[in-house]
């Protein structure tokens, strides 16, 4: 799902998902481990439909997944958005470091030529 969206759209979704204190609170709990939806919802004084809406927004941003086990609906935090960011960082870390190596060479050559 994440890969089919544009990067910009995907980031917008992640930002929007994280823009609400309840959704941030839910994620903070979920990064500690998979949690039953009842436990997650029990922390907030909002209606069941409101909880469902928050979960759906997190899910659409790729930050959350749900699975049913018997009577229990479990929620967990998803790593895809974080992996995407980490890949971006790794790509540019390599790109810029090799540009800086080349810049170092350029500056050395430039100095020699001046002398």
């Amino acid at each position, binding site marked *: 799902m994440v890969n089919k969206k544009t990067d910009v*759209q995907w980031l917008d979704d992640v*930002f929007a998902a994280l823009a609400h204190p309840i959704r941030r609170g839910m994620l903070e709990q979920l990064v500690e481990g998979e949690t039953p939806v009842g436990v997650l919802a029990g922390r907030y004084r909002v209606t069941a439909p409101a909880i469902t809406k928050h979960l759906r927004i997190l899910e659409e941003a790729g930050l959350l997944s749900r699975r049913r086990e018997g009577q229990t609906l479990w929620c967990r*935090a998803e790593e895809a958005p974080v992996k995407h960011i980490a890949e971006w960082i790794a790509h*540019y870390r390599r790109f810029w470091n090799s540009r800086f190596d080349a810049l170092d060479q350029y500056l050395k050559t430039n*100095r020699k030529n001046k002398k």
Partner: protein
Amino acid sequence: MPATKTHQLQLVRTFNATPEEVYAAWTSPEAIKVFFKPGNDFTMGRVDMDVRVGGYYTIQMLSKEGKPHTATGMFRDVVPNKKLVYTWNRLDGNDCGGNSAEEGGLKDTLITIEFRPKGSGTEMVFTHDLFPNDTSRDAHNKGWTAILDQFVRYHS
């Protein structure tokens, strides 16, 4: 996993040259044509630098097959010999995985370069910010980057 904030890349490098020399290299098309070349499989195409606040730049790198890899952006801040701030866009999409042109490429990321004298050389602090727009700054103030950092720790 990076030790810096999850949403940005910060690199510090020391050069055996004055801040004036390092700054001149970052702003001169002739120098950029030398040090921006990403390996021997590439040649450099057009390089335009209009180094003033609101001015645009274009850096075109050409692959062996003649495929252009173009970086463009606008200067946001220019302090000669001290600081450069500009946006970095890769709209042709020949970027890292997933940023195809159809998908919008990599838009409006922000590069900040600071040049500080260090002994007889220069310490360059280079920051590439993935989420530089207002939305992200707001979100940052609201503490969501802390959550992303938590994610990284949790999954690494």
